[in-house]
């Protein structure tokens, strides 16, 4: 019986590996690289125990505990610091990897009708789900071993073999738990979006439950698999049992996923699919309405994400002064300015990062136009009475408003959190102004995207390279002492660094003019060029 329903599981596993022969290594390399780089950086930045103790003091507040979980602050070695600050967040990323990969090979491929063809071959009913589980377990074990051994290979004193292996194993076990959770939602939900959405919701709820638990009630953290991650205390007490617990739970989840898969029809789910709208709302019946609708969920997610990012940056302001005093590298980053507190000098550096990140969603909103073209979906609209200007204009308006909203939300988030943790709070106008001065630079980026779509559609992704360049030279510029012109190659390099520098209107006006010229040239180009589809 088992032989029949699982036939060809191995062959399908090979297919999954073949399909993702680039995607899987990228995930692994990315996560392992991230895992290994951080302790190297920590070792560099906080080389003495005194510096680390200062860091530990900074970390000792509810906001940080909510973000990264509890840690061994009494004996804050490089190892303890890494597992405190990084393990939970990396585990969340590993969970995300598992969610995306599992959905991709279960519900998504079923939804696209490929499983139907597979199932018409002599392939067992449960072969696909188990092939996916098998591949994911192998990926996570590999991840555990590579990151564990990689950490040990760094040869940092406080990072022994057992702690390193436990660190890796915790990441892998978290990945396996979320593999199981997603495998179940892939059975329950009828769509891949649903399966991904529910699984990510569980991931976020698990994170929030343990955040609340870690701050106020330890028992609550026990209900979250991410709460168990902190309990391993890698490099401190080295508890292995949470890993065992996670594996035990995973086995139950795997069995449940198999059971649900066995009792359902292909294409069916268990959650009732609610019928969609019968008619399009008036709102949807225009290119701009359609464009907005297509990006709605993504925009909301970015808005929430950036707001939370603002809050998390804001929450560190409380202990900032004492923290900076003990750290040479950061002091070097913040060139000393007369008459301003270190905290105030920290603001422009934060604002560059936040404004660059807030530039990502408006650029995505603009490039969506190119994406739709690539998917041959614009032809449906252009075949009707929609002009090029109307089409591009719709996406542009969304991008411009989107950017304004995103930048505002980060600033508001930052202010709200800083206000809550600081004794002497900031003036809201100062924070908001320091963020919004970056808006003209953001407009230039949007304008450049319009220009690329209209005139050089083959190289639109250049905009991401340019944004990354801006990030590298402006964020790390102070550290590496780049010559000034390197920063001036980015529109963000012309922005006055409020509140430390004087406000200058001229560069802002010039940037805005450049942005509009780029937009107009792009529009003209878009009217002249061929549309791919």
């Amino acid at each position: 019986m088992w032989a029949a329903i699982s036939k060809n599981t191995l062959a399908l596993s090979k297919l999954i590996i073949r399909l993702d022969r680039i995607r899987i290594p990228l995930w692994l390399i990315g996560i392992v690289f991230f895992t290994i780089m951080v302790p190297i950086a920590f070792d560099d930045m906080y080389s003495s125990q005194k510096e680390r103790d200062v860091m530990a003091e900074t970390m000792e507040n509810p906001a940080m505990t909510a973000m990264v979980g509890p840690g061994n602050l009494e004996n804050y070695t490089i190892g303890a610091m890494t597992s405190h600050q990084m393990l939970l967040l990396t585990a969340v990323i590993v969970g995300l990897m598992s969610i995306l990969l599992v959905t991709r090979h279960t519900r998504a491929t079923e939804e696209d009708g490929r499983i139907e063809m597979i199932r018409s071959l002599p392939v067992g009913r449960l072969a696909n789900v188990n092939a996916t589980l098998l591949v994911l377990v192998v990926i996570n074990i590999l991840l555990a071993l590579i990151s564990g051994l990689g950490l040990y290979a760094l040869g940092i004193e406080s990072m022994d073999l057992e702690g390193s292996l436990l660190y890796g194993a915790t990441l892998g076990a978290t990945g396996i738990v979320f593999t199981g959770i997603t495998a179940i939602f892939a059975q329950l939900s009828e769509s891949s979006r649903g399966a991904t959405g529910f699984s990510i919701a569980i991931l976020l709820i698990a994170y929030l439950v343990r955040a609340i638990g870690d701050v106020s009630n330890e028992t609550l953290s026990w209900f979250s698999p991410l709460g168990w991650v902190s309990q391993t205390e890698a490099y401190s007490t080295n508890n292995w049992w949470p890993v065992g617990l996670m594996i035990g739970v995973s086995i139950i989840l795997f069995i449940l996923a198999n059971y649900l898969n066995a009792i359902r029809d292909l294409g069916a789910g268990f959650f009732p699919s609610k019928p969609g709208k019968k008619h399009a709302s008036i709102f949807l019946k225009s290119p701009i309405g359609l464009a907005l609708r297509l990006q709605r969920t993504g925009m909301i997610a970015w808005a929430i994400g950036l707001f939370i990012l603002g809050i998390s940056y804001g929450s560190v302001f409380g202990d900032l002064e004492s923290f900076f005093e003990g750290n040479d590298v950061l002091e070097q980053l913040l060139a000393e300015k007369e008459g301003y507190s270190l905290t105030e000098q920290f603001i422009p550096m934060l604002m560059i990062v936040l404004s660059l990140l807030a530039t990502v969603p408006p650029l995505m909103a603009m490039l969506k136009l190119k994406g739709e073209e690539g998917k041959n979906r614009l032809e449906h609209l252009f075949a009707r009475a929609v002009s090029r200007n109307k089409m591009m204009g719709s996406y542009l308006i969304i991008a411009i408003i989107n950017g304004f909203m995103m930048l505002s939300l980060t600033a508001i988030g930052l202010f709200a959190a800083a206000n809550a943790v600081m004794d002497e709070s900031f003036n809201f106008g100062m924070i908001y102004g320091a963020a919004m001065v970056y808006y003209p630079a953001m407009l230039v980026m949007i304008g450049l995207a319009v220009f690329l779509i209209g005139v050089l559609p083959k190289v639109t992704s250049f905009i991401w390279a340019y944004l990354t360049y801006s990030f590298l030279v402006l964020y790390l510029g102070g550290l590496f002492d780049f010559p000034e012109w390197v920063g001036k190659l980015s529109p963000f390099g012309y922005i006055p660094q409020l509140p430390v520098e004087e406000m200058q209107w001229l560069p802002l006006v010039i940037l805005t003019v450049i942005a509009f010229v780029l937009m107009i040239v792009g529009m003209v180009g878009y009217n002249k060029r061929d549309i791919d589809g």
Partner: protein
Amino acid sequence: MSILKTTNLTKRFGKFTALDGVNIEVNEGEVYGFIGPNGAGKSTTIRVLLGILKATEGTAEIFGKDAWSDAVEIHKRLAYVPGDVNLWPNLTGGEVIDLFVKLRGGNNKNRREELIKKFDLDPTKKCRTYSKGNRQKVALVAAFSSDADLYILDEPTSGLDPLMEQVFQECVIEAKQAGKSVLLSSHILSEVERLCDQVGIIRQGKIIETGSLAEMRHLTRTNLLVETKQPIISIHELKGVHDVVQKDKAISFQVDTEELDTVMKHVTQFGVVKLESAPPTLEDLFMRHYEDNDSDVRRGS
């Protein structure tokens, strides 16, 4: 010998009855045409036969085995082509064909090359670049290059051009000559007419007509075109006459087979100059069933 047989096959999705007592039988060496409008239950039937959906009631058997519990065994000797072929965008057509052939477990390299040539498919291209027709070709090549005993084809030619449609028909005829059985669901009635020995018409989850094309024609009407010396009068009033249309001097109409004799006697009174008679096309049969929703459900015998 019966290769595929469903008995009182019923499938419910919640309260909705998709299949309501479907009986189909495909014998060895036979091509069975399965026709019906969209949403009638053709694909649902096929998915039950593939063991992808579980029947609520009734049985579905292929090669004398249960379609659900022995799916894997059955599929070793079965090839399927869906109407809507979705493939992995980052694999080439050739890779997909090999994958499908390998999963079934059989290997016929020559046949594969021959079919790729016949269908004029470029197997080195990634699936994301294929048009609907080309994706269908991939599935067809994978299906026909395997040594199956039963082919289940669900609207396999909806994206093919007429030339490729011809190639497809050749493949089906070859399979039939080799003693293989085919279940062909199709909207292209001329294709069904040309290829199929048996036809089943499904509507709202019920088989409303089944039998050989000859049998089904016998039950229905003959198309007549008559030109007479004097104009034919009161043809409308005769029993069993339908769709009377005046065409210049001639008149065309349909006659129920059982009334043919009476009608012919009436017509000859007016001095027949020209007489053309044609059996009803499948399209006529099909349209008749779907146009008058209230008409009695006929059963082929």
